């Protein structure tokens, strides 16, 4: 008798194939939706390919956007691996960016040379604290961290929009640029944009590689995998699960902080920096597509960045609304979740001589 049965372990090749299928399926559905609304899909595809892979500048744009996506994706994947459903990377990134700008806006009488280290320290610390605080509330007060972080996203986005005088939106288009309300003050040395464009991608890739090594080869990684797999079993073998969760939360917050620094430094000193909206939500999709594996986050983030840069070009050139990114990202999330649950099962085919159970 043919039936579905649970797998003990899904082979890596199958997981990768499932993720790729999920991404393609999501894109096909998005294309169908757009065609239904009267958008010419071939010309859209042409515009998107030309804007991303058509020129060195386009490729650089993709890499520059992929960097924060790798960081937010990795932050999300690590948190999910240890059982922290952090849906609030968006809000945590906004918080870190705002604090980082405030810290360098001339509140402290410091020499200009210290501005960039100060901005970095402030963002990393804020990122770590904001994820750490939510985790503390989860551990001490039984707060549902998914709902709390999602609501904090709304509050932080509203705060940003109110301060910047923009219209309120709890779910702004992913990939849109929002001007930050505080002027960035890194007049000297003016390294911000260069750091954002060239150093951040490097940092992001190294972070993914280090996280892979951490999960694979260290005892701490084993603790993380155990705590994420079964809390009861992990406690039974003597792992302090709350402590492991807290450490991962702080680490994940630091990654979000790095992404925030990159956004803050995207503009030259003395001008207005912009923050790319939706990095948290797109990072969530990257984390699901990577099946929560640190190495998988790199290609997933590159793919999503390509898509978003392409949509941005399509918005400017043929007027397709930016919200198409939200639809594509949401479909990718659903498809990736379905793929993840599908690879856990296999078809059991009858062998000769076998009787039905």
């Amino acid at each position, binding site marked *: 008798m043919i039936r579905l049965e649970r797998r003990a372990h899904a082979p890596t090749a199958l997981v990768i194939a499932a993720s790729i299928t999920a991404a393609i399926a999501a894109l096909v559905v998005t294309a169908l939706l757009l065609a239904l609304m009267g958008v010419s899909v071939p010309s859209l595809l042409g515009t998107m390919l030309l804007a991303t892979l058509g020129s060195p500048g386009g490729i650089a744009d993709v890499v520059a956007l992929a960097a924060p996506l790798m960081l937010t994706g990795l932050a999300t994947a690590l948190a999910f691996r240890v059982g922290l459903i952090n849906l609030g990377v968006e809000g945590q990134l906004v918080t870190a960016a705002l604090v980082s700008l405030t810290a360098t806006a001339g509140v402290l009488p410091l020499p200009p040379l210290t501005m960039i280290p100060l901005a970095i320290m402030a963002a990393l610390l804020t990122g770590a604290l904001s994820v750490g605080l939510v985790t503390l509330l989860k551990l001490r007060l039984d707060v549902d961290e998914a*709902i709390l972080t999602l609501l904090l996203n709304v509050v932080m986005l*509203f705060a940003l929009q109110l301060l910047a005088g923009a*219209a309120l939106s709890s779910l702004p288009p992913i990939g849109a640029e929002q001007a930050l309300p505080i002027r960035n003050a890194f007049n000297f040395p003016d390294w911000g944009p260069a750091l954002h464009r060239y150093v951040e991608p490097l940092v992001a890739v190294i972070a993914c590689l280090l996280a892979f090594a951490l999960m694979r080869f260290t005892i701490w990684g084993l603790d993380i995998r155990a705590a994420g797999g079964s809390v009861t079993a992990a406690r039974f073998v003597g792992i302090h699960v709350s402590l492991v969760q807290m450490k991962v939360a702080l680490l994940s917050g630091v990654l979000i902080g790095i992404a925030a620094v990159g956004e803050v430094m995207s503009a030259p000193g003395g001008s207005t920096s912009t923050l790319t909206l939706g990095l948290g939500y797109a990072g969530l999709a990257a984390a699901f597509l990577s099946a929560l594996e640190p190495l998988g986050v790199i290609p997933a983030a590159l793919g999503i960045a390509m898509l978003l840069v392409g949509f941005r070009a399509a918005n400017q050139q043929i007027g397709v609304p*930016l919200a198409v990114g939200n639809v594509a990202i949401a479909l990718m999330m659903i498809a990736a979740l379905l793929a993840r649950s599908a690879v856990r099962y296999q078809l059991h085919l009858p062998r000769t001589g076998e009787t039905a159970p």
Partner: protein
Amino acid sequence: MSGLGAALQVLADTSFWMAAIALTAPLLYAAMGAMLCGQAGVLTLGIEGIVTSGAFVALLSTRAGTAHWTALVIAASTGTLLGLASGILTSPLRLPQRTTGLAITLLAAGTCQLVYGIVFATAATPPSIVPFSSIDLSWIWRLPYMSAIPDLPYVSEFGRALFHATSPVYLALITALAIGLVIKHTPLGLALRACGENPAAIKAQGRSVHRLRVGASIVGSTLMAMGGGTLALTSADAFSFSLLSGRGFAALMLTMLAGWRIGRTFLAVLAFAMVDAYQLHLQHRLGDPLALTLSPLLPYAIALVVLVATSRSTMRRFPLSAD
């Protein structure tokens, strides 16, 4: 005038109460939907997207020329479809509720924004409609014996506003009452509650947990979309997505902090709407001063603090599924 006096003055203003009641109705629909799902053990983070699509579909159908009530029904049926989809994904297909819900929210709201961008791309001004007109129930005051009720400060302003609202507002109150009765006093309500508290008991009875949960998701999402539709069709302002931003999540938050109980949910919704109306009123009166830039966050901030403070007791009484 002292600060406190000025603050109290707002409460004596009928227009403040009218705003508070107008803000209550959509939230109440959405919160009732969330509560119905929550009772059955379904946590719907898709609520924000469902409320948004309800509002947007109501706007589209009204602009296409349908009557207000028809538009509301069409809006509600959008919620029915989304509830069916999210119910099937999370219950029989067993996808994690929280992440799937967030994806549904992104998908529904994103699709609305996409269609909005395409349909109204050439419009110079945001689309507006003629809203529901209010019903005058002030004859209730002239009924015999009504004059025996003393003219209390604040209360009579509230009464005047309450008897001068739009019909979806009254329907919201009736719906809330009906849902409360169904959940508390019918076998179906008992089954729903059991489904949330102890699904094994439902299985032991030979009933289907999936069927109850998908059903709750469908009815709940229909109510959420109804809330969105009400918001779009009772507001005098031109439609924009900032009109409903965060309302869906707010309704879910209020339901949670009320511990999924009907009476408390109603009070929480009313309090939230009052704080929101209050800060709007204050801003309007003082002419948008800089100090009040962040005041729209006030109701959310208060509700969040209450949510965190009460979560230990509500989670103990009504634990949510972990995924």
